[in-house]
């Protein structure tokens, strides 16, 4: 593959570490800032990104240009506006944004300048999870250097547009990745989601128009502005544009993450790039894009990893990093682990999520440890049915938690029944 075919990671993994401003420029960086700020109006940047069909890489897959288009178009600098990079990568099984943050922080910075210019926001914030210490050091170093060289600050390239970035190192909690909870955290409050409307684009941080974009989404922008919308659309194999950082964890020979054309078949990712399952293990099922996506059966491995195809298969592309369940790992134990996470990370604001998720966790623990009752399965189905659909709870946390549960109850019905019948975990008993 050539650098132009994997634009996001072309400068990542170099022996000298992440490029500095000069090296970044020599390798093709900064062209997008030059082009956007000198030759394009903010609306032209929005139109270009809309035409590129870039969709959010954080999990929801919303059109980036469309998201920006809701920001009120006041005359520049008459109002505070914010462009926020969501670097709160906490979806279990996901390790793509850390790669981009540590590997090439200037690419994110350039993407943020472009996005900030498009929506005419002077303030950039990177909301970084607190455990990413190396990323924090590298981001702060890159921001300081970019400021010194003049890529950040007032009147960039004499364009009249000024942009500043600061990093917020979070105090933890998965819910901060939800964009309204993220804004609440930035305001120095307990990170509970907000009701919408108002949407952040209209009334976000401190009530000001704000756009929250995922790190991988923002890192695509310099390449779109530099190479054009047609080039970007052509990178994808199917209906979706661009490349995607895919990944695989679990019992495969070579767990990892790879930048591949959007729409790459899951089988190619698992078998070719990850090297297939380790000797002695067979693929049973998988979560295609993080903990909050529904299980796909091993027989569905030929699905193309793009938004529509994965949805048609009954799940979501999510973050695009798959977690594999092998035939020697207990699916009930795996679900218990997942629901423990979701129960712990509920913000506690709304009752169905705060009380329902721990109930689910306890039922799964009972079944896994051999004390489950037959009607426990009915209670689990009840929760999947009642908490699953969007709109029954305050935010998408509980529906996300129910995605693996609802699909797992159907896919692993025999495993659940065997646990209850034998009063033990059949896999642990024979292991």
């Amino acid at each position: 593959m050539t650098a132009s075919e994997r634009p996001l990671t072309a400068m990542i993994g170099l022996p000298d570490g992440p490029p500095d401003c000069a090296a970044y420029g020599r390798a093709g960086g900064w062209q997008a800032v030059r082009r956007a700020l000198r030759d394009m109006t903010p609306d032209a940047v929005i139109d270009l990104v809309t035409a590129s069909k870039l969709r959010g890489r954080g999990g929801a897959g919303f059109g980036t240009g469309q998201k920006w288009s809701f920001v009120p178009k006041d005359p520049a600098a008459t109002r505070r506006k914010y462009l926020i990079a969501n670097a709160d990568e906490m979806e279990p099984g996901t390790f793509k944004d850390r790669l981009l943050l540590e590997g090439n922080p200037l690419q994110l910075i350039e993407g943020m300048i472009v996005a900030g210019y498009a929506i005419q926001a002077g303030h950039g914030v990177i909301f970084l999870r607190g455990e990413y210490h190396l990323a924090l050091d590298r981001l702060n170093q890159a921001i300081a250097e970019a400021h010194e060289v003049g890529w950040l600050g007032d009147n960039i390239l004499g364009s009249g547009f000024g942009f500043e970035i600061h990093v917020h190192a979070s105090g933890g909690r998965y819910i901060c990745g939800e964009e309204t909870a993220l804004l609440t955290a930035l305001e120095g409050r307990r990170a509970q989601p907000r009701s919408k409307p108002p949407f952040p684009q209209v009334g976000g941080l401190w009530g000001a128009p704000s756009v929250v974009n995922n790190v991988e989404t923002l890192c695509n922008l310099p390449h779109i502005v530099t190479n054009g919308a047609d080039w970007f659309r052509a990178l994808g194999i199917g209906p979706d544009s661009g490349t995607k950082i895919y990944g695989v964890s679990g019992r495969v020979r070579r767990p990892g993450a790879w930048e591949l054309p959007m729409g790459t078949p899951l089988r190619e990712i698992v078998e070719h790039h990850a090297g297939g399952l380790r000797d002695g293990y067979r693929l049973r099922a998988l979560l295609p894009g993080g903990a909050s996506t529904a299980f796909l059966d091993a027989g569905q491995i030929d699905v193309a990893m793009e938004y529509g195809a994965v949805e048609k298969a009954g799940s979501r592309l999510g973050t695009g990093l798959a977690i594999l369940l092998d035939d020697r790992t207990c699916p009930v134990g795996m679900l218990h682990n997942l629901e423990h996470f979701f129960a712990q990370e509920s913000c506690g604001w709304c009752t169905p999520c705060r009380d329902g998720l721990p109930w689910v966790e306890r039922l799964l623990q009972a079944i896994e440890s051999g004390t489950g009752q037959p009607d426990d399965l009915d209670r689990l189905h009840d929760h999947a049915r009642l908490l699953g659909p969007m709109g029954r709870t305050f935010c998408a946390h509980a529906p996300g938690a129910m995605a693996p549960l609802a699909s797992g109850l159907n896919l692993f019905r025999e495993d659940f029944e065997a646990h209850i019948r034998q009063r033990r975990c059949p896999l642990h008993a024979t292991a």
Partner: protein
Amino acid sequence: MSTADPTLPPELRDRITGLARAEHRPRAAAISALTLVQDQFGWVSDPHLAETASLLGMSPADLDGIATYFNLIFRRPVGRHVIMLCDSVSCWIMGRDAVCARLQARLGIRPGETTPDGAVTLLPIVCLGHCDHAPAMLVDRTLHGDLDAETAERLADTLRTPAP
């Protein structure tokens, strides 16, 4: 205690005040201020919390509501080193329970506890984004991956050498 009886060193007070001034509203500096206190003292005590709150123009209860919401802010003392062992799904599949059991046995503590010599606190943590090197753990600011019971135990042993 009262704010007239400060326990935070003056330079730390100045840094917190500076953080608060740089924000749109002082309370936005809550997490970064608590993190500064914790970096210096290892945790956030009641007097330090109250004093930080006063520097941010908040009530202690208001700031404590934030401090106790976010899991990376410690409101109880921790050891000189903190091990955060991932307990999320990829690390679980790859054997984090066996790593945890060995660490517990070697350190003589359960998750959430500190060794009696004050050297090590063992905590569970959600996915560290190191799933291609599962099981993973964070020791203070350093990420370690591809762990098994033996490598984790050796790492833990290096943390228990006497404090300088």
